[in-house]
């Protein structure tokens, strides 16, 4: 779906739809009756001040937390109280705000963790059918290498090195590769630019757009604080404050919105 189609308001069944989603932590309402829809192929920016419920939204969608009220559907199927495993198998994968790679493992290993559902997990296959395993291993290795090459060609020659020795930008790239290798329908990016310089962020966004072009029908929700990024890559934005949606629309529209300015800058 292109920007024009979104703007013209063409109605397509949403990939992800949340209705009345509510999550409380003790006295804090992290998500307050949130309605949110994402159209197929869209890049949706999810923005808002710290603590406005963006990451909580991701955690509820991916099943890390169960919501207190409301429901979530993905491709028309109910995933409201699904376990994280089921959400992943349904076709949603994510990155984490604070990098959650397994540092002692190699680049390849980390990416393969994301490829879980496409690898043969039978004990017999893994232990006894080593020849077949080797074929699957070699094919997966090539695939992972091709993916890494999009982000950083030199890195593709270091696939069996530990992640611990890599700089932040490479770790982010690998985390995104881990999320993409299983060819998800929906990718949730939680502040991919955190801890990176302006140029690195810009580079990373180019790479994400490039990869999206290669995976048909990939929808992305991105949480981001850098407004330049949001302006450049999103089709539409949703602004949260105190767990509520306070604005929705193109970046230009929400940037001009008074409520958004108040939430960010405290204007009265």
């Amino acid at each position, binding site marked *: 779906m292109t920007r024009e189609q979104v703007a013209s308001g063409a109605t397509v069944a949403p990939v992800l739809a949340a209705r009345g989603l509510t999550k409380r932590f003790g006295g804090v309402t992290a998500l307050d009756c949130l309605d949110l829809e994402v159209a197929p192929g869209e890049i949706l920016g999810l923005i808002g001040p710290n603590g406005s419920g963006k990451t909580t939204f991701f955690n509820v969608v*991916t099943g*890390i937390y169960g919501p207190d009220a409301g429901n979530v559907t993905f491709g028309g199927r109910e995933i409201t109280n699904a*376990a*994280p*495993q089921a*959400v*992943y*198998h349904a076709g949603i*994968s*994510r990155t*984490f705000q604070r990098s*959650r790679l*397994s*540092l*002692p*493992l*190699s680049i390849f*290993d980390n990416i*393969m*963790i*994301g490829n*879980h*559902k496409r*690898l*043969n*997990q039978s*004990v017999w296959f*893994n*232990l006894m059918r*080593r020849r077949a*395993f*080797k074929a699957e*291993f*070699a094919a997966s*290795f*090539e695939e992972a*290498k091709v993916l890494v090459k999009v982000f950083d060609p030199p890195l593709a020659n270091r*696939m*069996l*090195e*530990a992640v611990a020795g890599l700089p932040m930008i490479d770790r982010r790239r690998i985390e995104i590769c*881990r999320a993409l290798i*299983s060819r998800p329908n929906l990718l949730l990016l939680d502040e991919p630019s955190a801890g990176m310089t302006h140029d690195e962020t810009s580079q990373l966004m180019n790479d994400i757009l490039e990869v999206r072009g290669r995976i048909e029908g990939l929808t992305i929700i991105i949480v981001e604080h850098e407004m330049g990024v949001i302006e450049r890559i999103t089709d539409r934005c949703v602004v949260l404050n105190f767990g509520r949606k306070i604005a929705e629309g193109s970046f230009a529209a929400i940037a001009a919105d008074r409520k958004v300015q108040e939430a960010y800058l405290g204007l009265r």
Partner: protein
Amino acid sequence: MAPQQMKAVESILPGAVALALATVYLIVLLRVENQTTILILLAIGIATVVAANWLGWLTPVGRSFGEREDVLGLLSIVAAIVVAGYFHGDHFVLLLLCTVLLYTVATLGLNLQFGYAGVLNFAGASFFGIGAYTAAVLNQHTAIPHLIVLLIGGLVAALIGCLLLLPVLRTRGHYAAVVTIAFALLFKTFLEVNDVLGGPQGLQVRSMNVLGWSFNNNIGIGSLQLSFYASYFVTSLLILIGGFTLVRRLERSWIGLNLDALRLDETAARCFGLNIVRWKVTAFLLGNFLIGIAGTLQGMVVGFVQPNSYTFADSLIFVSILLLGGIGNPWGVVVATLIVVIVPEKLQAIQEYRFLLYAALVMVVLLFRPEGLLPRPVRSYFPGWRS
């Protein structure tokens, strides 16, 4: 020689040389009886390793074991047979070697649980003992072939391990460890008060008998007299080869990756579809199975079982072997078992203070080499594989 062959030899050579030196050293150490000489030998051994490490000579050795594990694994089997062959008539040394092999198997099982899945098990000796008691009971009261008893011993250990599954799955880290400690203490008390299983005196274990061939007879081939422990040595070696291969293949597969993933970050693992329960249970049961098999054979080797042989302190020996060798590295387990089992046996002066030695050793290792003597390298699924 073709250049390719040259390269193959070059990559094997450092490992093979180190292995040969270690074999000779081990034979000399096992041979010598004089306590002062043993002390000097141990000092020389430590000094050599430290110096070689300092000079960077151990790097090529490590690399060749990493790249040509197939060949060097076979050479290690040959080395083990050479050592046993040299002491073919010596009951004491062969028994010691059997102990080394079987402790290695048990610690490999522990390695699956703790090193890969991150499930602490402080009841290793209990599961070892379950195997041994299974051997005692089955060999006495049934006519089940003893090779099958070995398997049953492993299965019984895994089955009884199921009792611990729920607490292990529901608790994490230290709490799970405490549950296994409780199990170890309960197990010993249970044996002591249970008259059917011989109470504190324990039980005799009938020796192994395979296809009518009793393992309790010395073997005479022409004029060559072999200790009866030689048969046990061969059986132990075969079990170790099997166990080592199993652990190695498991590590170098998606299962090994799953276990690492859930150990390092359970939440992230769940977000990528990992069934935490399935893999923790697999690792825990498989680990106990290995420990159980080793224990079953050990019971038959020693010939009797008693509660005092399978205490919490013995479980700590397994854990200290794992820490000393390098968590997650099967080769580290082999080296560490050799040290932990043989040194106190040879140095009679410290036998009384064995546990003091283990404690000191573990502390020194954790201080100066926290990842163990042989730290686990990054996984390479097929050593020497190039894309």
